[in-house]
């Protein structure tokens, strides 16, 4: 697609952006997190993994605004560096399922018949297992780590996107402009990816934003269980897990990473909801 069309589309959105406070608010939160992630080395006051036995378990103070943990690490610095990992989890954990699901859904919806049946039965099989159980078993087979987590998400998470896109494509392929495209001799690939997909994708884009929230929480949960990010790397899920034994005496170790998860999730869902309104997606 030419830059001109994208430019034109963006111009159209700008007008709507201005009228959408929720969209602006969500976008502001997300942009703030991205900036923090990029500027982590410059804005974090301490080294996030440097242990200092002299300042163990200190309550929030001017020197350590979020306090310190049981190894004397600065919680604020760890939360700031954690943005990098958690943002990565949310984005990569969504982008692979999104791409796979979109392709599968488009092809299944467009061709129908045996292709559709095969893919949709596969979807049924995957949906028959509880989501987290499936993800955990895949990670257990591949070995702990973020790489395994992304693979597991890609293998399991695409089903929702495939179903969303397929349903849309099924409706759109009988629309008059799709029939017109066939009657004008357009190739199947062109009809699928230039005419049907762009019109079918809005719902999935919106869903991906709320999916990012779930993936983020899953990533944190997996790390909490010791299957994701490995210590001593700063990641919010691990921080919550590590602070758990001290919850009654040093609440700040768990509270601040927990709040960060909530804030990021809130940003994604605000942005997603408002994006849905702006794109005219009916749910």
């Amino acid at each position, binding site marked *: 697609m030419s830059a001109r069309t994208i430019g034109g589309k963006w111009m159209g959105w700008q007008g709507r952006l201005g009228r959408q406070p929720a969209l602006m608010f969500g976008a502001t939160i997300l942009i703030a997190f991205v900036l923090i992630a990029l500027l982590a080395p410059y804005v974090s006051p301490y080294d996030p993994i440097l242990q200092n036995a002299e300042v163990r378990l200190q309550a929030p103070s001017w020197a350590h605004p979020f306090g310190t943990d049981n190894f004397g690490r600065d919680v604020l610095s760890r939360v700031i560096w954690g943005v990098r990992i958690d943002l990565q989890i949310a984005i990569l954990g969504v982008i692979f399922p999104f791409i796979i699901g979109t392709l599968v859904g488009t092809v299944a919806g467009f061709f129908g018949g045996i292709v559709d049946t095969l893919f949709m039965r596969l979807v049924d099989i995957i949906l028959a297992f509880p989501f987290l159980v499936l993800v955990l078993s895949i990670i257990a087979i591949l070995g702990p780590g973020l790489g395994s987590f992304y693979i597991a998400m890609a293998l399991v998470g695409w089903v929702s996107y495939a179903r969303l896109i397929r349903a849309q494509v099924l409706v759109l392929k009988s629309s*008059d402009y799709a029939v017109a495209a066939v009657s*004008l*001799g357009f190739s199947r690939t*062109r009809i699928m990816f230039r005419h049907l997909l762009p019109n079918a994708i809005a719902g999935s884009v919106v869903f991906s934003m709320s999916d990012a929230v779930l993936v983020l929480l899953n990533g944190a949960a997996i790390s909490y269980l010791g299957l994701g990010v490995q210590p001593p790397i700063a990641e919010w899920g691990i921080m919550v897990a590590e602070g758990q034994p001290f919850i009654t005496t040093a609440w700040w170790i768990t509270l601040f990473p927990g709040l960060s998860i909530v804030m990021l999730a809130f940003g994604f869902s605000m942005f997603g909801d408002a994006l849905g309104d702006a794109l005219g997606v009916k749910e």
Partner: protein
Amino acid sequence: MSAPVLSVRDLTVTLNLPGAAPRMLLDKVSLELGKGEVLGLVGESGSGKSLFCRTLVRLLPSRNMRITDGRILLGDEDLARASEAQMLDVRGGRIGMIFQNPTSHLDPVMTIGDQLTEGIRFHQGLDARAARKAAVAILHQIGFPEPERQFDAYPHEFSGGMRQRAMIGVALSCNPEILIADEPTTALDVTIQAQILQLLMDIRRERDLSIILITHDLGIVAQTCDCIAVMREGRLVEQGRKRDLLRAPAHPYTKALIGSHPSMPPPSTGQGAVAPKAIGTPADKPLLEVDDVNVRFAGTGSLFGGRSGAVHAVAGVSLKILPGETVGIVGESGSGKSTLARAILGLTPIASGNVVFDGTSLREDRAAFLGRLRRETAMVFQDPYNALNPRLSIGDMLTEVLKVQGRTPAADIPARVGELLDLVDLGREFAARRPRSMSGGQCQRAGIARALAVNPRLIIADESTAALDVTIQAQILDLFRVLKRKMNLTLLFIAHDLAIVRSLCDRVVVMHRGHIVEQGASAQVFEHPAEPYTQALIRAIPDIDPDKPLLPQAAREVA
């Protein structure tokens, strides 16, 4: 005129959007409706005629709309100032409404009978048994053949026409003084339309009911109404007694509206079918030959391969189209006319038979046949919005067609896009516009430009004017006439509207339940129809001349 039941004075409705200047949607509309009188409210989409009727019962579609001035006098009561509680009695009880689409206005999970008795019990306070009796009486009156049994049937068990009857019944169940009918027959076939109009007239006579009939079809107004009010852009441009207004319209817009009604003879400049030209001799080689084509749709199969009965959508249809000819296919919904068009274009598989396009046969060489069709034919669709990809600008859409067809050198494409826009009378600036920002008529022109982009020899237009307002309809028909002359096009024009086909086509094919019932020169078929079905179909067209009555005989026979 008897004393008015309803008198509206200077009714003004304003739209206040936050951050925008207030807009007047209805601008000082005044009119009166006498007892037992039928008022035709005419205008195009967006003229405010539906809004006017919703305002009468104070059901404004948005909170941002307000009645800012004027009075709505129903008897002594001013509805513009009545309380919500008073309005509850008025809605249904004194003013009943029926709508264009009965399917979405009837409750699908309630029986027809329950929907009738609900209103009877609420507004007339009868007990269940008496209400049922009253409901059965109404069902009988609105033409249900077995009211006792059909009382317990659900809306989906009925055809569109019967559902519309049911909706009229629901409106009558509250025994209103005024019935507002908003495009009640627009979604129906002509023969059914005639029946429903007949029913409305019968009810009017039996109950001395006053009716406001909203419609875009002046033919309907001419056949049923006593008075006409013409609306445009929220204003009442003209009103008066039917005959006076039709004979001597004062406002230019009313004149245009009457002039564009398709039952009028085409203007002398137009190339009509009224004086058929000599288009080649029968010895000419046909451009398109359809030979005994059958199309069947399988019933939905179950997992275990059981198939319910197949539907025979097109049954043994044969026809020939000569180069340069304009052929119309008419028929009611479900007659198989659209399926036939799709089958001809290779978009729907045919069960048996053959199609030959300019010597290339579908049976002998399917690939070559489809290849030629894709490069030498094009289709124009009914719904102009659904026919255009909403994400592509008109320029991008045309460019793509030219690129894929590959006959225009890349460097010439922008110039060709400009030419195509000129051909359909769209300004060149439309190249950058998207369908969403365009009107229905403009979208339809863009759709025609897309068809012309392949430089076709044959264009198939499937109900291409059905979704448009009358004046726009007339413009699109003119465009087809001009293009036909300029580009020596062959046109296959599918429509349910016989008047349009008559004004545009040289030859006409009448379809009914998948079969061709009759075909011949337009003038011949329309003036001297041989088959009873064609005769019934033609008689059901509401003529704009009130002296050519539609109702008494036409409705009865077809039923």
